[in-house]
């Protein structure tokens, strides 16, 4: 009888009670035990203190589709937050990546929230292109009766601010959708506004649905409410507004002293942060402005010498990016008619903004401002993202970044990138950087360690691939790997050269091709190497390789894309359209991944 259930010594009873209970238990049949457990459950339910009930008690769970289009994950994170709020409100909410959706399916949704960012020069995020194209096509399905609202993410520093969100909004209306709330267009400091809008819009939706339910009670198919206590996606402990202060343990300019470029390899200690990342993720960095530039801005606004204001501007305000809104606002503030006029003329304002910054505006029309006016004019300082260049499996509790120093001259003024120059010029080993994790679940090593990978990453685009190769080296992954790297000069700009040599020798990297543009008269870029290697490259693709592209979005990613299409057309002897379709299939299968900026 030893196998019969016995209360352990640790059970929450006194020793004599345990003895008595065990005496009884030993004698029970399975049926008796089963009855007893049911009885105890009922007893418990009947005698429990009354629980807090959900805020709104609709009788049915309404479906809600939260469709997001993202490149760097902001929209995705907002969609996850919206889902959490909606679930609490009693919606059966799903967050759906536009990459996995089709207009046909979404047209059947009853309630639709669209969260979309804008990229490139007003383009949708890369993974959302199929959906976007389908929706814009003449053959797009009708969205009659679909209740929807659009949250647009963007950056006012770009000419086509929130273009993608605007287009979705207009198109859904044209296709018969019922807009339940005005679109919101969020700038880089979107968090608070976006959250308020989500709360408000879901509240509106809930009210609308409640009205409808009163008119036509009990929608068929709606099931009995179950309070969903499941948590939303685990939230990151550290955020842009509450970043982790990571100590800088190493900081090296990888370019030679003869180089025209400066690319900083920075090693950060994550010890104590609890941050765990995967290769492909990025860190957000909350920079500090150049104090000299802050001085200039303060001086131009007639506020020189205000130490408190200096500190605020240095840490919290964007003192570089110039927007049309700011021109208009500055005009209003100062009553400067010329500025008001300029701010009202989109084309002229755009021309003025080109190559100019806040300081140019202040200098162009000197006016004394109050501290409040100045801070009212400035946007919050947005963090910058950097691909993590290391793997925790190789360097536990560390994250390495590779940061290209941005320096240029426009309109006779030497300019520096806010974040990159902060690292290049002001941070020292032993000091810290404010960071938070920015996961990128769409730019990951293949699940199967045997899958071959092709990595195309010129310039700082090499960063995540160092993470990939480190990771595959640490895990002993069997898959072949091929890296295409490019930069200006072989001798002076070959980032991580010794490490690649080592990885090649160890077999963690199978193949390396490089393109250095300034070593000879003819410019040579990675796409030229792709073309030269087209036979093998296509063979790798046919073998199931995942092709990754990282780095410059403007020229490089486009040229590489076009070249990949040419490679396919040439090797498969198909026309351009079929080659494009091949790449599209790869993209849909998650085998053509881009992380470009």
């Amino acid at each position, binding site marked *: 009888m030893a196998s019969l259930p016995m209360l352990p010594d640790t059970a929450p009873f006194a020793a004599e009670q345990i003895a008595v209970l065990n005496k009884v238990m030993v004698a029970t049949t399975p049926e008796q035990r089963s009855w007893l457990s049911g009885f105890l459950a009922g007893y418990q339910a009947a005698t429990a203190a009354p629980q807090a009930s959900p805020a709104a008690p609709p009788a049915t769970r309404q479906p809600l589709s939260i469709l997001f289009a993202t490149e760097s994950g902001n929209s995705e994170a907002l969609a996850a937050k919206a889902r959490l709020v909606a679930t609490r409100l009693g919606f059966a909410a799903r967050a759906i990546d536009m990459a996995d959706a089709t207009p046909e399916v979404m047209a059947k949704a009853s309630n639709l929230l669209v969260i979309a960012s804008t990229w490139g020069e007003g383009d949708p995020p890369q993974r959302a292109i199929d959906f976007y194209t389908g929706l814009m096509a003449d053959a797009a399905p009708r969205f009659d009766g679909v209740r929807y609202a659009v949250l647009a993410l963007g950056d006012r520093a770009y000419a086509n601010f929130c273009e993608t969100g605007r287009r979705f909004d207009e198109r859904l209306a044209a296709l018969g959708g019922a807009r339940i709330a005005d679109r919101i267009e969020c700038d880089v400091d979107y968090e608070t506004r976006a959250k308020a809008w989500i709360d408000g819009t879901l509240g509106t939706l809930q009210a609308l649905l409640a009205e409808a339910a009163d008119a036509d009670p009990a929608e068929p198919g709606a099931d009995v409410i179950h309070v969903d206590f499941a948590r939303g996606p685990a939230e990151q402990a550290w955020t842009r507004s509450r970043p982790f202060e990571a100590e800088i343990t190493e900081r090296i300019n990888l370019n*030679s*002293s003869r180089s025209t470029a400066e690319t900083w390899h920075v090693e950060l200690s994550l010890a104590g942060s609890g941050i765990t990342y995967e290769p492909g993720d990025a860190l957000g960095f909350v920079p500090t402005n150049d104090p000299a530039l802050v001085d200039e801005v303060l001086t131009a606004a007639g506020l020189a010498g205000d130490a408190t204001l200096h500190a605020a501007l240095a840490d919290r305000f964007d003192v570089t990016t110039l927007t049309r809104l700011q021109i208009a606002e500055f005009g209003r503030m100062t009553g400067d008619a010329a500025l008001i006029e300029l701010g009202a003329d989109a084309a002229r304002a755009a021309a003025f903004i080109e190559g100019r910054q806040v300081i140019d505006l202040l200098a162009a029309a000197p006016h004394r401002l109050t501290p409040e006016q100045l801070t009212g004019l400035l946007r919050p300082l947005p963090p910058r993202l950097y691909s993590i260049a290391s793997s925790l499996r190789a360097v536990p509790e560390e994250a390495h970044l590779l940061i290209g120093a941005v320096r240029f001259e426009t309109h006779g003024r030497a300019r520096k990138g806010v974040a990159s120059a902060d690292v290049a010029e002001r941070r020292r080993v032993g000091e810290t950087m404010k960071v938070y994790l920015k996961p990128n679940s769409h730019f990951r090593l293949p699940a199967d360690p045997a899958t071959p990978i092709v990595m195309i990453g010129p310039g700082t685009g090499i960063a995540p691939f160092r993470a990939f190769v480190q990771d595959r080296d640490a895990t002993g992954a069997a898959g072949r790997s091929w890296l295409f790297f490019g930069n200006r000069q072989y001798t002076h700009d070959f980032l991580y050269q010794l490490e690649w040599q080592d990885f090649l020798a160890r077999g963690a990297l199978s193949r390396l091709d490089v393109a250095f543009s300034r*070593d000879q008269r003819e410019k040579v870029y990675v796409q030229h190497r792709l073309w030269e290697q087209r036979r093998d490259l296509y063979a790798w693709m046919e073998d199931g390789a995942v092709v990754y592209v990282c780095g410059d979005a403007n020229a490089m990613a486009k040229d590489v894309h076009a070249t990949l299409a040419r490679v396919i057309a040439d090797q498969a002897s198909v026309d351009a359209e079929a080659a494009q379709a091949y790449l599209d299939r790869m993209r849909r299968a998650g085998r053509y991944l881009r992380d470009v900026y």
Partner: protein
Amino acid sequence: MADEKKLSRNETIKEESRFLRGSIAEGLHRAETGALSEDDTQLTKFHGIYQQDDRDLRAERGRKKMEKAFSFMARLRIPGGTLTPAQWLALDDIAQERANGTIRLTTRQTVQFHGIIKTNLRPAIAAINRAMLDTVAACGDVNRNVIATSNPYERATHGAVVALARAVSLALLPKSRAYHEIWIGDELVAGGEEEDEPIYGRTYLPRKFKIAITVPPHNDVDVFAHDLGFIAIVEDGRIAGYNVTAGGGMGMTHGEPDTFPRTGDVLGFCAPDQVIAVAEQVVTTQRDFGDRADRKHARLKYTIERMGVDGFRAELERRLGFALAPARPFHLEGNGDRYGWREGDDGLAHYTLFVENGRIADTGTRRLLSGLRAIAGVHAGTFVLTCNQNLTIAQVAPDRRPAIDALLAEYGLDGDVTALRRHAMACVALPTCGLALAESERYLPSLVTELDAVMARLGLAEDAITLRMTGCPNGCARPYLAEIGLVGRGPGTYNLYLGAAFDGSRLNKLYMKDVSDAAIVAALTPLLEEYARDRESGERFGDFVIRRGHVQATVGGNRFHADLAPGLAA
């Protein structure tokens, strides 16, 4: 000979190289490194190509996660040193597009490019080839560029010695097709099984081999510094034949007194049509008798020391099948160049341009590179390189002189240069030379400026004294044949040698050891003061210091380290 001793590593590399191929072609395609394999870097020398790295950058490279800043030096083979203006323009293009933007004239009458990175190497060599030039055997254990006196103003003899230099060079060129396969041809010619090197054999020579031809009274080639020399004996305006010298060389190693510079011995006289046979048989003798175990003793000069001059001559004559005639008398005057305009015996004019340390670059107002490019654009004659790292704009018709003069003025190339600077020469050394112990090319100009001030103060501004500096004891600027020789010992330190003959016939001798750069002027000033005060009429500085007992005369290479002042040891 060295039968029992272990062969040097290079012998195996050569043996296994399939006639100088090694794995160079494969190495050129490896993207992750700017270098070639160590063994292959020995083989590229035979193709005129040296792997180097920028030593100025060494310290930072590892920390920046980059290998050494590798690049290649390519040395041309230009026997006799004459180039057409079109060739000059082609070289200028190559320097801009594929190398570091400068052209370096060498102490052996040719051109070097520095800073060619691996990916530019094939395009550079191919471009050199398109200019009807090559780098074959410019380095390596073979006969190198054959040099000849630059005396275009004696048209017939100059023509004859340049033609001879070319013929000798051609006769001793390696026959392997490896060069064309690797650097020029697109497809590989068969693997070399059928090839043979009738003169050299599979393992070529034990060491480098150098030939110089001089036309007295000029000794600009420093005929006694080379393994093999031919001194033209001009009788009645035509070359009757050549005195043959053998066993010259400069290189030595600090602290190893069994290595030493040596002036060649005059072996005898041969007729013009015997020159090639003599050259071939001196080469085969060295091939068979040279030391293949210890590269520091492998040059012909040590072979001759071992065999004795007579023994060597006997072996040579046995191979030739004839005896050399007794040497004929000759008279040498100096080993420098003659600058500025000179009328030639054919009515054409020739302008010898001073090129400081051979470096053709635009520096300040002296825009050598651009200037020579401009001159090459209008010049109808030739360019003749000299063995003192200078260049002669040769064969200028009288009516073309003003145009050349105008360009020389325009590019700041007509200014006066002091006699001391004109007779000064430095080897390349830092940052490209892997063997340099001290600065040379980058330092000598400022040292000369300091010494010039002393010379001017002493009224010696017009007096020529030969001054040569090298960054190490290998002796690339032939410092042991300079009246003042400075040889690098370590960063900022030099050994000071005195007492060579102005005409290049006598080696100098160690006068002071480990002189810091800051102390050089102070070390020389009292000697120059004494010279200014006490010299006899026409007496050369090199002879003066011997007469006054500052150093003893070096009578032969094997006495170079002997007869030092008390307390001095080599």
